[in-house]
């Protein structure tokens, strides 16, 4: 052919974004492009592939500073709308987690508990501009004599509010069934007895880490779409585990990589941060997350060309195995199969339902595409990519 092998740099891609010449497509659109042109030609054509995912992500929360009062206070207990927040930090610094229930929540005493309001809802309320009740207690010191604080605040009143999620965007997730003889209520939703339904939770072909399975371009400092605003990957997330069986294309066959992400809450939107209540389990936060993948070469084009047919996961029993720490698969299914609404488990046909919004995932990928095309969002080269092997 005589054509040179494509090799682009971050700087070249950013220059094209600045010039308004960058070719940006979503991960769903990239599937057809790679299929039609092959990875080399696709890499020549496309500069950036945008991904997206929107679903409950429990390991989420917010660092905040709520400002001083007179006399000053060193808060040792903090509540926001009766939800306890962590106060073992400096005087008026705190962290509120998405799954923290209201102090007087009946939890699962009335089974299955509804968990109508939790830490995730506090974050949604704040980002939506609604006022919340902040309460703090302190033991008092010579430098911080205040003992109590109680005030209605909005996000504008907080000097600092940082969404900081220790684990988001799981690269693949289990398909959950319940092989026990009674209904169970899990973080994977309500699962009927004797394996009569199956729930799954991934944006599939649009999912960020499915499109860069070996984390070649994602790591500390990667600029991302987070909660409707701009955020950053700060490092690999908790439970990040790259050492799992993979397909020929390099994609994990079971849950693997994760990202820790953060961003200034004040530029985010309640459209992309939603408090959720999961029956019998608890509250959480649905997070909108989108990662741009720079197409540096044919390898990145091939990675981002992955389709729902190429992506697989394991069927896991949440009636007995999961809570007993038993690692066992009842079969491997592709996301394309899961999306048809029916899979086969132990020779029986089982109805499937998603927990992750494919529609919203697509909207995020489209929105991020728009930002890049408009020259409002550039691609960061990570200071360090996430580990592809852990010892």
């Amino acid at each position: 052919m005589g054509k040179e092998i494509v090799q682009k740099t971050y700087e070249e891609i950013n220059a094209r974004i600045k010039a308004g010449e960058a070719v940006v497509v979503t991960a769903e659109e990239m599937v057809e492009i790679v299929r039609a042109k092959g990875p080399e030609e696709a890499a020549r054509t496309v500069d950036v592939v945008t991904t997206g995912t929107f679903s409950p992500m429990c390991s989420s929360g917010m660092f905040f500073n709520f400002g001083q009062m007179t006399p000053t206070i060193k808060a040792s207990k903090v509540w926001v709308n009766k939800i306890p927040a962590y106060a073992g930090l400096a005087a008026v610094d705190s962290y509120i987690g998405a799954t923290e229930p209201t102090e007087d929540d009946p939890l699962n005493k009335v089974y299955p508990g509804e968990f109508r309001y939790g830490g995730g809802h506090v974050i949604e309320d704040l980002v939506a501009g609604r006022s919340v009740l902040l309460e703090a207690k302190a033991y008092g010191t010579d430098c911080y004599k205040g003992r109590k604080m109680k005030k209605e605040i909005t996000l504008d009143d907080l000097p600092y509010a940082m969404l900081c999620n220790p684990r988001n965007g799981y690269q693949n997730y289990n398909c959950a069934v319940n092989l026990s003889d009674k209904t169970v209520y899990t973080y994977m939703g309500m699962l009927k007895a004797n394996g009569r339904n199956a729930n799954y939770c991934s944006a599939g072909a649009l999912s960020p880490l499915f499109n860069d399975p070996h984390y070649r371009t994602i790591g500390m400092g990667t600029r991302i779409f987070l909660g409707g605003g701009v955020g950053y990957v700060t490092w690999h997330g908790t439970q990040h585990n790259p050492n799992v069986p993979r397909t020929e294309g390099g994609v994990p066959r079971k849950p693997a990589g994760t990202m820790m992400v953060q961003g200034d809450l004040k530029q985010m939107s309640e459209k992309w941060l939603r408090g959720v209540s999961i029956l019998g389990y608890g509250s959480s936060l649905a997070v909108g997350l989108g990662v741009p993948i720079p197409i540096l070469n044919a390898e990145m084009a091939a990675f981002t060309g992955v389709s729902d047919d190429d992506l697989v996961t394991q069927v896991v029993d949440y009636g007995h195995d999961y809570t007993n720490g038993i690692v066992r698969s009842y079969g491997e299914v592709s996301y394309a199969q899961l999306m048809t609404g029916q899979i086969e488990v132990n020779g029986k046909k089982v109805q499937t339902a998603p927990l992750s919004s494919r529609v919203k995932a697509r909207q995020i990928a489209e929105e991020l595409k728009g930002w890049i095309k408009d020259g409002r969002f550039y691609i960061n080269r990570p200071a360090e990519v996430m580990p592809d092997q852990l010892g």
Partner: protein
Amino acid sequence: MYNRIYLLRFPKETSNDPVIYRLVKQYDVEFNILKADILPHREGLMILELKGTKEHVKSSLAYMTDLGVNVERLAASIRRDDDKCFQCGACTGVCPVGALSLHRPDMEVIFDPEKCTGCGQCVPICPVRAMEVSWGMEILEGEEAAF
């Protein structure tokens, strides 16, 4: 064949009458009781599916209205708050009649109130409580009044 689901509210004076029996005898309609409840003040609430010729269904409804039964299409009393719904699809796994379903290949979650039988299973399953059943509150208020 005309097939519709109705929400019936029976005043307490009628809750002892064999209304459904007469309905079948006189108007030749097929019925399927999807939900029936007697509330604390002895008023009744029923979700009833009626099947028959349009004429028969209409006259059976007129008969019940004459008895003082409040008749409403069930589809009118159930709604999805589209601002709240974020199209995850969890509800499609519990809806037994396909009123909540996924449109493929875009995976949009579709709600068809005409197919809904008012079982209410989707209400607590929805992580953002986007499904609203208006008669659910009525039962709650009834219970409160009983204390």
